[in-house]
C-alpha cells in the first residue's frame, strides 16, 4: 500500500472512530447512575387547567420566609413535568445538601415577572413529611440520587404565592 493510501485509510479510520455522539436516553424510571439530586414519582389529580403553561419541579434549601425568598430555588433552570398521564417520574438535579421544600410549581400562560408572580404561579403539590403529612418533608442529597421522593400534584388544590406568604396589612 502506498503512503498516500495509508494516509487516506488512517484518516477514514480516525473519522470512523469518532462516531460516539449523542444517543437517545429513555426517560428515567429510577435515579440514573451518576446522577446527583432528587428523584421520585409525581401523581396527578384533578383537571389540568386550560391556561396551563408548564409545571416545574424545584427545591429550596431553606423554606422560604417570604416573597423575597421565592426565587431562591434550585436548579437555576428547573425541569418541567410531562402532563397528560396519571403519574410521571421526575429527576431534579441539585447539589449535595439538605432541602426543606421540594415542590411542583404550576405556571399560567403569560410572561412571568416578580411583580405578577402571585397571579401566574401556584404551588401545585409538595413532598410531605411521612411523619406529619401537613408539613413539608426534608430531603438530604449526598453525592448520589435520592430516590422515592414522591408526591401528588392536585390541579384542583393549587395555592398562589399569597397563600404561603400573605402580604402584610397595607397602611390606609
Amino acid at each position, binding site marked *: 500500500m502506498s503512503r*498516500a493510501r495509508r494516509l487516506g485509510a488512517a484518516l477514514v479510520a480516525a473519522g470512523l472512530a*469518532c462516531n460516539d455522539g449523542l444517543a437517545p436516553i429513555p426517560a428515567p424510571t429510577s435515579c440514573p447512575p451518576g446522577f446527583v439530586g432528587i428523584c421520585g414519582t409525581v401523581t396527578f389529580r384533578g383537571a389540568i387547567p386550560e391556561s396551563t403553561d408548564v409545571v416545574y419541579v424545584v427545591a429550596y434549601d431553606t423554606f422560604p420566609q417570604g416573597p423575597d425568598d421565592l426565587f431562591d430555588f434550585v436548579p*437555576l433552570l428547573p425541569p418541567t413535568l410531562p402532563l397528560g398521564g396519571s403519574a410521571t417520574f421526575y429527576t431534579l438535579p441539585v447539589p449535595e445538601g439538605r432541602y426543606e421544600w421540594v415542590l411542583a410549581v404550576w405556571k399560567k400562560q403569560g410572561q*412571568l415577572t416578580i411583580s405578577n408572580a402571585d397571579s401566574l404561579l401556584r404551588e401545585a403539590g409538595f413532598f410531605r413529611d411521612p411523619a406529619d403529612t401537613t408539613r413539608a418533608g426534608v430531603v438530604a442529597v449526598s453525592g448520589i440520587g435520592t430516590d422515592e421522593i414522591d408526591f401528588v400534584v392536585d390541579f384542583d388544590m393549587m395555592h398562589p404565592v399569597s397563600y404561603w406568604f400573605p402580604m402584610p396589612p397595607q397602611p390606609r
Partner: protein
Amino acid sequence: MRTRPSTAGALAAVLAAGPLAAQRTGVVYGTVRDTTGAPLAHAVVQASGTLLRTTADEAGRYRLAGIRDGPALLEVRLIGYRLERRTVQITTGDSVVADFALHPGPLYVGHEVVTAAKRSQLLDEAVTSVALVTRDDLRRRVVERIDEAVDKAPGVHYLNGQINLRGSTGYAQGLGARVLLLVDGVPMNQGDRGGINWDLVPVDWAERVEIVKGAGSALYGSGALGGVVNIITTDPPQRVHVRARATAGAFADPPHDVWAFRERMGGHGSLDVTASYRSDEFGGAATGGFRHSDGYREQSARDHWHVAAKGHYALAPATRLDLSGSWAVDEYEVPLLWCVRGTCEDGGQAYQPFKVDSSARGDRTWSGKGYVAAVLSRAATEQLSWTLRASWLRTRFTDFHRAGDDFSIANRLGVEGRVEARRTADGVVTVGAEATLADVSSDIFGTHTQGEYAVYAESERLLGRVRLTTGARIDFLAIDGSGLTAVVSPRVGAVIGAGAAVWRASAGRGFRAPSLGERFVTTVVPPFRVLPNPSLHAETAWSFELGHRRSLGVLGDLDAAAFWTEAVDYIEPAVNATTFEIQFRNLTRARLAGLDLAVTAAPFTPNLTTGLAYTLLYTREAPRDTAPARALPFRPRHLLRLSADWTPAPFTVGADLRIVSRFERVLLYESDPRVAERVLDLRFGWHWGSLDARLLVTNALNYIYNQVPRTLAPVRTLSLSAVWTY
C-alpha cells in the same frame, strides 16, 4: 489669500484627469498558465506602483489597459504559485503581449495581504498571524456562505454562526462579536448587535479571505479586539462572463427512530447567477439568487434571497473608484431550544434533539440587511497614495413570537480617509482618520446612537534584518450624543528574517465598545428577563504574540504562534439565578492564552495537499461575586483540523476532519448532555470544460452533537452543485 486643498478639490482634480483612453497609455494582454500549459483562472495581474489590476478568466486570458507609456513592471500572483515579475515596454496607443507561466511554489510565501497593516504587504512581513482562505478553498467546499469555508481556517471556530478567533467571542446569541468583518476593507459589523452577517457578499465574488488574529484595534478600533476578517472580492475578467450555480441536496434523517420528527426527508437547494463585464476602464458584476432549506431539525426551514452589484472605474492609471452594494432577505423559523421531557411529544425520551420545545413552536424571524460602499483610491506617486471611503450598512429584523413580536432597525454609517507614504524603500507610514455612527430604533434595544471617531498612524521601518512596526490609534466614543470617552490602542511589532523562515513578535492593546444591543437590550428569553446595562463600558485587552513561519520548500508551510491576551472589563452575559435575569456586565479580568499551529504540505505527490491545524486554548475569568476563578464559557480547550485533497485531473477528492473538545463551561443547562465535536466532511469534484460539478457530504458520519446547550448541530448533509461558466 492662501488656499488649502480639500477633499472636494482632490476629487475634482481626479475627475478632471479624464478617462484612461485620453492619456498616453497602452495595453498589455496575454495568458497566465502553469508549467504544464493549463490555464490559471483568477490569477491577478497588476501593474506595479499603480492601481491597475485585472483577473485572468477561465481560459487564463487577461488584458490590462491604461498603463503609462514606458517600461512597466507587471506582477502576477496566485496562491500556490511563485510570484512572477516582468518588465514590459508600453507604447502609447499600442498593445503588447506578455504570457506568463507560473511555477508551483510554497503555498503562501511571497503572497500579498492587505489587512494586517491596512495596506498591501507580503504575508511574511505581517507582525501578527494571518490565515488565508483562498478562492479554491471556497470552490471545492461548495459553500453557499463565506463563513462555511472560514470555519475551516486554522484557529477559527464557529459557534451557532458566531465566529471565534482563538476563543475571542464565546457565544451570546449573535450579540457583541469581538471580530471585525470587512468587505474590501469596509467595516460591516451590525449597528445594533455588533454581530456579523456573512451573506452580505456573494460567494462567487470572493477572491480570498484574510483572517488576522489578535488585537487589531491599533488600526481598526472597536470590534477588532479578537481579530479581523477581510473578504477581498475579485475584479471581473475581461469581456462578458456569466456564471450560474445550482445546488441541491438533502439532510439525513435522525439516526434513531425514536428521534424521528417528520415523514419525508428534508432537502435544500439554491440558484445563483452572476453576470460580469469588463472593459479597459470599467468593470462590474451583478449577482442574484435564492436558497431554500427545509432544515435538518424541526422548525428550522429557511428562505433567502439576495441581489448584489459591484463595479470599478479606472479614472486614471493611478486612480480608481469602486462601488458596491447588496441587499439580502431571510425568512426563517427559530428552533431556539430542543425539546426535553414534557415540553413536546417526547416519546418517552429524556430529550428529543430534533424537536423543539412546543412553547416556542411557530417562532420565526424576518431579516433584511444590505450595504452600499464607495472607495476612491489614488496612487499619486510611487511614494504617496491615498484612499477615501464611505459606507452605509442597514439591518432590520422582526422576530415573531407567540408572546409578542420584536423588531430592530439599525444603520451603520462610516467614512475613512487614509494616506500611505513610502519615505524610502525600507519605510512606510500609514496615517488615517475614521468616523462611524451607528443608530438603532427597536422595541428591545430602544432608540440610541453611538459615535466612534478616530485617528491612527502606523510606521514600518527596516532596521538591519528587523522590520519594526509601531503605531497607535485613539478612538473617541459617544453614546446618545454624550461626552466623549477616549481609548488609546498602541501596537508594536517586529519581523525578523525573510523567505524561508520568519520570526514575528507583537504586543498591542485592543478594545471593544459594547454594542448598543448589549448595552440597552430589554427582552425576555424564557424563563429569563434580559436587562439593560447603560453603565456597561468598553472592554480592553493587551495581546501578545510570538510567531514563526517556515517554508517547507515545495512541501508547503509551517506556521506556529504562542499568544496571550489579558483582558480588563471583559463583557460577558451574567446570569442571576435568584431573580431569573441576564445582564451583560464587565468582568474584572479575563485571560486567553494558547498555541496555534498550522502545517500545509504536499508530502507524496504534487497532486496531494494535506493540512493540519491545531489550537490549544486556556481561558480563565477572575473570581467575581461568589464565583471562583473558572474557564470562560463556550471556549474549547482543543481545536484540531485535518484536511487532504487529491487532484488527479479532471477529478478532485478531499476530506476535512474537525475535532473540537467539549467546552469546560457553558451558561445555562450545564448538566445537559454535551459531547465533543468530531465532524468529517467529504468532497468530490469533476471539471469538464465550462462545467464544474461538486459533491459534498458534510458530517459524513452523521455524528450527532451539540456545543450550545439544547441546540443540535448540523447532521449529515448531501449537496450536489453544478457551476457553469461562460
